C-alpha cells in the first residue's frame, strides 16, 4: 500500500481547485456510531472487532474492492502509521490509541473511513482548493450508501450521537487548510483569529487539535455541529473564508508594494538555505518552504510550481522521508538526509 502511495501525490496536495494558491485543501468529516454498541471508550475488544468486521463487510458490498485499502492500524508498524498521519489520512488519535482499529482508504486518497477512532466511524473526504459543497456531495453520497447497510445511532432530538457532545447533531466538521504567510508577517493574523472566534470558527495547526501552526499553515473549522443543517455549516465557512483570502491577498500586495526588498530577502534566504543546508529539521524546513511557496505565488521564485512545493512539504516530513529512502533513520540522520533531498530537488531554482 505505502509503496503505491509513494508514487502518487495526495489528491488534496495537487495544487488545483479554487484559490489553491492560498487554500491548500478543504475537508469534511462526519462522526457516526453504530447502534447496539457502546461508544469506543466503553467498547470491549470483541465489540471493536465486530465493528471493524461490520464496516469491512459493508465496504465490500458498496465499494469496488480494488478501489480501497483496508488497513488494520493496531498491527501496522509505527512508521507506516506516521506516514498515513502525515498524509492527513488518519488522525493522531487513531495512531496513538490502543485496541482494534482500522482505516479504509480510497486509493485516490479522496476519502477515508477511520474505524474505532473517537467514534465508531469517522468518514472524511478532502480535496485540493476551496470547494466544500463538492466535498459534501461526495461525502453525503458515501454516508447514504453506508447508512443503507449500517444502523447508525440517531436520536430524535439530538441527531447523530457522538462519543463527545461537541460533535453531536450533524457530526460534521468542515475544515479548510490555509497558507497565510503574508498575514503572519504583517501580524494581521491575530485580528483574523479574533473575528473567527466571533462566528464560532476554530483555528488549529497543521495536524488538527492542539497542534501548533507551522509553515504558516492554519486549519479553520466550524466549532458547532448542532442546530444547523450541513449546508448551513458549510455556508458559514463559505462566507468567511473568502474574506480571509482577500486579507491575505491584500497583505501580499502590501508586502510587494511597500516591503519588496524585505520580501525578496526572505524568499531568497529561504531558497539559499534550503538549497545549501547540510542538515535541517522538519519544522525549519516547513518554515522556509512557506517562504518558497509565497515566492512562487508572487512570481519572485521561478522554475518550480506550487504543486512541486506542496510535494516538498509532504516528502520532507519524517515518515515520508524515511519511506522514500527505504530505511529507518535516527533524527540526526533524518536531518542530514532531508537536507540532501532538498538540495537534489531544488536544483532547478
Amino acid at each position: 500500500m505505502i509503496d503505491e502511495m509513494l508514487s502518487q501525490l495526495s489528491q488534496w496536495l495537487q495544487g488545483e481547485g479554487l484559490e489553491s494558491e492560498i487554500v491548500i485543501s478543504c475537508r469534511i468529516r462526519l462522526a457516526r456510531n453504530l447502534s447496539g454498541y457502546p461508544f469506543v471508550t466503553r467498547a470491549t475488544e470483541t465489540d471493536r472487532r465486530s465493528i471493524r468486521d461490520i464496516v469491512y463487510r459493508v465496504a465490500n458490498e458498496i465499494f469496488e474492492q480494488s478501489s480501497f485499502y483496508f488497513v488494520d492500524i493496531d498491527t501496522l508498524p509505527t512508521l507506516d502509521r506516521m506516514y498515513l498521519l502525515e498524509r492527513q489520512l488518519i488522525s493522531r488519535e487513531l495512531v496513538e490509541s490502543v485496541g482494534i482499529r482500522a482505516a479504509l482508504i480510497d486509493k485516490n486518497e479522496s476519502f477515508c473511513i477511520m474505524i474505532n477512532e473517537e467514534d465508531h466511524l469517522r468518514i472524511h473526504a478532502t480535496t485540493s482548493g476551496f470547494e466544500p459543497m463538492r466535498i459534501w456531495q461526495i461525502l453525503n453520497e458515501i454516508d447514504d450508501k453506508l447508512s443503507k447497510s449500517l444502523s447508525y445511532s440517531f436520536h430524535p432530538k439530538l441527531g447523530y450521537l457522538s462519543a463527545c457532545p461537541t460533535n453531536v447533531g450533524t457530526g460534521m466538521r468542515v475544515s479548510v487548510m490555509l497558507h497565510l504567510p503574508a498575514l503572519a508577517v504583517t501580524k494581521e493574523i491575530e485580528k483574523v483569529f479574533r473575528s473567527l472566534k466571533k462566528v464560532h470558527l476554530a483555528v488549529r495547526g497543521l495536524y488538527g487539535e492542539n497542534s501548533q501552526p507551522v509553515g504558516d499553515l492554519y486549519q479553520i473549522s466550524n466549532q458547532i455541529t448542532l442546530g444547523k443543517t450541513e449546508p448551513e455549516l458549510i455556508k458559514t465557512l463559505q462566507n468567511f473564508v473568502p474574506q480571509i483570502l482577500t486579507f491575505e491577498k491584500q497583505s501580499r500586495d502590501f508586502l510587494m508594494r511597500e516591503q519588496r526588498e524585505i520580501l525578496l530577502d526572505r524568499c531568497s534566504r529561504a531558497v539559499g538555505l534550503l538549497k545549501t543546508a547540510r542538515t535541517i529539521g522538519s519544522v525549519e524546513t516547513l518554515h522556509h518552504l512557506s517562504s518558497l511557496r509565497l515566492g512562487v505565488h508572487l512570481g519572485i521564485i521561478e522554475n518550480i510550481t506550487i504543486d512541486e512545493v506542496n510535494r516538498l512539504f509532504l516528502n520532507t516530513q519524517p515518515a515520508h522521508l524515511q519511506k522514500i529512502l527505504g530505511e529507518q533513520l535516527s533524527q540526526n540522520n533524518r536531518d542530514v538526509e532531508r537536507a540532501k533531498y532538498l538540495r537534489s530537488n531544488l536544483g532547478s531554482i
Partner: protein
Amino acid sequence: MKCQKCNKPAMFHITELTGDKPEEHHFCELHAKEYLNETSQNSDTESSDGLTAALADSPVQKNPMTKVSAELQAIDRQVCPVCGISFYDFRNRGRLGCANDYDCFAKQLEPLITNIHGASEHVGKKPSEIKLQLNDSMKLIKLRRDLDTAINEEDYKKASKIRDEIKKLEN
C-alpha cells in the same frame, strides 16, 4: 474542546461579562475550580458575581465553591445502567460511554450542549430508516456488556444464552 490550560477536555465553559467585552474561558474541572477560586478572591463581592453566563445550569455557576463539591459529587455518582459509565468518568475523560448517556445524563448534558452549540435540536440530515429501535439498541449494549462479564467469569452457559439473545435482537 480542550481546556485552555491543559490537554484535558474542557467541561466548564465560562463567559466573563465584567470587562468591556465578554471573555470566553474553557476549562477542565481542576482549572475551572482554580479559576473560580481566583475570581472569588479577586472579587469585592460574592463569589458568583461576574459569572453570568457559565454553563447554564452548572452548579459551578450557581453556587459558591463550598457547595460545589458536594453537589458535583452527587452528580458524579450517577451511573448509566446500560454502559456502566459514571458522570464522573465522563467529566474526566470527556467521552460518553453509550447512546443512552444522552438521556441518562440529560439534565447535566442539555445545558452543556446548548452552551457549546447555541442550540439543542438537530435540524440536519437523517438516516433514511432507523434500523434498530432505541430500546433494542440499549438492550444489545447491555447484553454485550453482560456477555463480556460472563466470559471473564468463565460462565460459558450464561455466555451462550446471552449470545442467543443478542442474535435474536440483531435479526
